[in-house]
């Protein structure tokens, strides 16, 4: 809401600049979005008087005006406005001036005639089209007759005011009015704001004789009305129009403007309607009927239901309560009898109605945040009195009440020690009393206890904590000391699991992978790819975009999106890992998925980019990624054998280049090449990936570090080269060697793999080094030879190997 600095000055003695005032508001009350002046960016716009005008010789609509702009000679200005007329004072943009939209005005020729500037309409000097009064929407604006020729126009249009745009939090609905802001500033500056209260000049006939109210108090706990007769509809005085347009409200006429003005001033939405347009003399506030139709003032026909509150006469709805009036009872130029409704509607119902009809009006926003329930009468009184003064109306005697209740001040207690205990201050009792008084609260002190009486203008305050906030903000957060919590010592440390997760991240980084953080919400298709287990999917009930509808059940798809993003930008070498959650559901009717920590990686191109190497030859392959995963698993020191078992069970993976990873028989993840057709769909180059169930790894027993004595006795090695069928795997050979290796076989290492030329078709050659060692004695050659022969023989007999 834009609050006028000049308007505030009517109630407070403000000695600081608008900017400083805004800063004070921000530091003590609510956030300030901006401080602006309507004249910002405008210059050399002056009052001119059209002394005479004549037709342009070469145009049927342009006029050449002789305008007095306060200089020795009259200026000739060409003007095409339909309402241009001699004798009026107008807004003149002089040559060299700047008008709205940062447009510079120069002396220029218009169809051969020199124009010394421009006569302006309001929208040309920065007025929003939605605030310009209808009568001025299609032509130049006429300034008041007493405007001084040659002077800047700004002061005549309120454009020299400063507007403080406050961003009011939901609890501070009271700050959505000039009075509310004035009261808060009064508290901050320890001033009593000079707020005026209306006295109503009524005629003798009773309003209650004119109108009856039938109100459902569950919908409208307070509902009141005044009737003003014999009003003369006309434009409002300029001072009122200025207040409205500076607040972003379009001036309409002296009755509607009054209601809008009262809303700005008091924060109480009013609804004025033409009483002669309603049937009968009873006004109802009731639930709408299912399917009931109402055309609101914005000329939209709306279909209502029982969750909407309507104001109605005996046969039709005439307003959508608290949101917008109905067109059928609109105030127009012929209106003479005005009904002014001042009410409180249920905030949640108004909020929902506004949402349902997508109709967020100033009134609905106020009702949603609550209004001062004690101010309903004053608002309708002030409105009626203004209609008397501005529209010559006769105010019928009395306020007619449809519903009401005794609005009581809230009484809240708090102790001084509580204040200091929670704020960490050493405030004295009179300091705290003074703050409550500045806020306009009643206060009595009994011993240590304050009994604070909070007026209805601050309906957000109910409990002691609310009072603590008031004390803190008025005392000033800058004045609070800065300390650290004291008290019993607590142990701060990461849990075992957290440490392992951190370690996992460090390890993959040390192994060359960059940490990625991808989106957990993805497409339904991607969410269900690369699945390590069966799971139903979890979908958003109302997603924002098609790209993010379903919770991921794998991390790889997100990483592939990342690879695609990079590949599309000609970044070919991508090495990423991600640690995060996947979301599984055992069955579709399970509502809430279980969350599991996974860690996954994807490498495309080269892991280590070496410009001196051939990029293609240096590109990642299965074994490089496997080395990374093996190194990681080794670092985790998990107890149990780690196996890589060829698998074709992942439809998104290369069927011949993928392995399940199992530890001690438990599947913990997989590794391999992304299926070329999947890669194509993702628009990525050849990519290798792995995904591990981190939760499972973290829970597995870890090897205890125990010292292994280093043998004093020498080790003896034997090499063996085998020619075997291509489908015989390294794992098979290793298993066979280990099985028959004997007591002293310490380790086996593969040192050569060869497939290709010079070998018989379908064969491959593998070569191993076997290391023998006896921890307790020196092995003899004979012992080793004997053991080695046994291994060789078994390889021949069991795997059909040919020893080379």
């Amino acid at each position: 809401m834009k609050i006028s600095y000049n308007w505030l000055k009517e109630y407070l003695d403000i000695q600081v600049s608008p900017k400083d005032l805004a800063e004070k508001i921000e530091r003590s009350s609510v956030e300030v979005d901006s401080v602006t002046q309507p004249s910002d960016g405008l210059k050399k716009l002056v009052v001119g008087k059209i002394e005479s005008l004549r037709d342009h010789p070469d145009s049927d609509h342009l006029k050449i005006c002789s305008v007095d702009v306060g200089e020795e000679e009259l200026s000739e200005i060409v003007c095409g406005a339909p309402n241009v007329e001699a004798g009026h004072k107008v807004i003149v943009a002089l040559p060299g001036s700047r008008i709205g939209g940062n447009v510079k005005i120069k002396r220029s020729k218009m169809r051969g005639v020199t124009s010394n500037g421009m006569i302006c309409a309001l929208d040309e000097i920065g007025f929003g089209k939605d605030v310009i009064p209808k009568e001025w929407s299609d032509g130049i604006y006429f300034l008041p007759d007493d405007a001084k020729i040659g002077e800047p126009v700004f002061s005549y249009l309120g454009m020299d005011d400063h507007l403080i745009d406050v961003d009011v939090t939901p609890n501070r609905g009271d700050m959505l009015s000039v009075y509310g802001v004035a009261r808060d500033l009064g508290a901050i500056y320890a001033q009593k704001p000079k707020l005026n209260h209306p006295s109503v000049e009524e005629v003798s006939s009773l309003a209650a004789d004119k109108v009856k109210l039938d109100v459902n108090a569950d919908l409208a706990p307070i509902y009141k009305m005044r009737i003003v007769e014999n009003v003369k509809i006309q434009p409002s005085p300029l001072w009122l129009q200025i207040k409205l347009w500076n607040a972003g409200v379009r001036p309409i006429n002296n009755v509607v403007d009054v209601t809008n003005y009262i809303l700005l001033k008091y924060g109480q939405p009013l609804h004025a309607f033409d009483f002669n347009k309603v049937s009968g003399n009873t006004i109802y506030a009731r639930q709408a009927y299912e399917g009931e139709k109402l055309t609101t003032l914005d000329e939209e026909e709306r279909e209502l239901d029982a969750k909407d509150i309507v104001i109605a006469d005996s046969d039709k709805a005439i307003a959508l309560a608290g949101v917008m009036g109905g067109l059928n009872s609109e105030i127009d130029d012929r209106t003479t009898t005005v009904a002014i409704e001042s009410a409180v509607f249920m905030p949640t119902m108004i909020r929902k109605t506004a949402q349902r009809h997508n109709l967020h009006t100033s009134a609905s926003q106020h009702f949603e945040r609550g209004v001062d329930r004690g101010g309903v009468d004053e608002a309708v009184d002030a409105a009626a009195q203004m209609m008397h003064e501005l529209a010559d109306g006769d105010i019928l005697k009395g306020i007619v009440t449809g519903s009401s209740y005794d609005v009581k001040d809230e009484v809240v207690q708090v102790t001084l020690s509580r204040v200091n205990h929670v704020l960490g201050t050493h405030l004295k009792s009179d300091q705290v009393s003074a703050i409550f008084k500045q806020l306009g609260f009643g206060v009595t002190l009994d011993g240590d206890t304050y009994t604070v009486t909070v007026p209805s203008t601050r309906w957000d305050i109910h409990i002691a904590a609310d009072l603590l906030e008031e004390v803190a903000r008025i005392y000033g957060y800058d004045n609070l000391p800065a300390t650290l919590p004291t008290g019993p010592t607590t142990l701060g440390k990461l849990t075992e699991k957290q440490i392992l997760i951190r370690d996992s991240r460090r390890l993959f980084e040390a192994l060359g992978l960059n940490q990625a953080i991808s989106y957990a919400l993805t497409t339904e298709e991607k969410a269900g790819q690369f699945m390590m287990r069966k799971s139903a999917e979890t979908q958003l009930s109302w997603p924002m975009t098609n790209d993010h509808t379903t919770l991921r059940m794998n991390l790889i798809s997100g990483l592939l999106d990342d690879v695609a993003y990079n590949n599309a930008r000609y970044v070919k070498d991508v090495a990423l890992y991600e640690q995060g959650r996947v979301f599984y559901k055992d069955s579709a009717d399970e509502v809430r998925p279980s969350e599991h920590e996974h860690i996954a990686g994807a490498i495309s191109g080269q892991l280590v980019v070496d410009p001196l190497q051939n990029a293609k030859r240096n590109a990642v392959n299965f074994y490089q990624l496997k080395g990374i995963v093996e190194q990681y698993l080794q670092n985790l020191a998990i107890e149990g054998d780690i196996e890589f078992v060829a698998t074709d069970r992942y439809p998104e993976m290369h069927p011949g280049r993928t392995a399940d990873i199992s530890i001690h028989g438990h599947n913990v993840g997989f590794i391999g090449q992304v299926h070329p057709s999947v890669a194509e769909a993702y628009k990525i180059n050849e990519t290798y990936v792995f995904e591990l169930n981190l939760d499972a790894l973290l829970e597995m027993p870890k090897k205890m570090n125990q010292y292994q004595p280093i043998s004093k006795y020498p080790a003896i090695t034997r090499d063996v080269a085998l020619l075997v069928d291509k489908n015989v795997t390294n794992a098979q050979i290793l298993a066979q060697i280990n099985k028959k290796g004997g007591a002293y076989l310490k380790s086996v290492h593969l040192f050569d793999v060869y497939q290709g030329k010079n070998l018989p078709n379908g064969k491959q050659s593998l070569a191993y080094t076997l290391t023998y060692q006896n921890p307790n004695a020196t092995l003899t050659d004979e012992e080793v030879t004997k053991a080695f022969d046994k291994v060789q023989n078994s390889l021949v007999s069991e795997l059909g190997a040919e020893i080379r």
Partner: protein
Amino acid sequence: MTLRDQLEKIRQEREQNIKDVGDLKKLDALRVELLGKKGPITQALRSMRDLPAEERPQFGQFANRVRDELQTTIERRRDELKQAMLNKELQEEKIDVTLPGKPVAQGQPHVIQQIIDQIEDLFIGMGYQVLTGPEVEEDKYNFEMMNLPKDHPARDMQDTFYITKEILMRTQTSPMQARTLEKHDFSQGPLKMISPGVVYRRDTDDPTHSHQFHQVEGIVIDKHITMADLKGTLQLVAHELFGDRFDIRLRPSYFPFTEPSVEADITCFNCGGKGCAVCKYTGWIEVLGAGMVHPNVLKMAGVDPEVFGGFAFGLGPDRFAMLKYGVDDIRNFYLNDVRFLTQFSKKG
């Protein structure tokens, strides 16, 4: 010529010969020739028996000295030659030290992870536990127990991804306040906890909005925790994360789960507090929300607000990273462009 004179002559001539030798092989040959069994020194010593007995010891001494001197000269020459050879070799081995080093594999933590780790370490040092909660949360914990009943207007402030009416993607890490408060045994001491994690909002992704981002929730509940403690704690966060020249200020704000509620601003990164376009000429930038835990939140979690109280805060690592490194588009954090990821060395 006496034997002695002969020897002296040999010494002089040969010494020069040795110095003139240009390679090790020739030097070795010369050594054999000179000092070998058939060499002149040995010959001279053999001829010694022709001398009168009283001269022999003196001559013997002299001959030995000559031999030693020649030996020394040879050795010195050998060292010289060796050194020269080595120098030549080293000269030939010269490399271009300006050629690039061999690249090694080295990945980096994500910049947001770096910030989160830093926050964790800071709070662990102050005795806080680190707890993580579910990303798919119940309405009860995300809203209701945070003092946001179903019809609360503040629910409009944050648009929520619902899965069902009661299950949603958490919009904040605050539900961990309720979850830990419910469980904490205050007889075992105060609750001091931070909870980092991913949160989700129903937002359209643009430079300043992301439907997924991070938060670090913090809460301290004990018998004597003050708003001044909150201020001091947040000041420490600013100093540790950004540097000593950064200060914070508190402003009133509103969160349903704290009362009083504050917004904390930090000294503008761009101008250092002087005022610039980034901070809208205020010198301050809004970075986090905090406050004293609302009595209703404590009550709903079964904690007596008359006895216990404390503060809570929510830090935004994404926002911190954007401010600290001048990142102007939050989407960068989730697109994982390698050229972006690798810019943030650990001790930036």
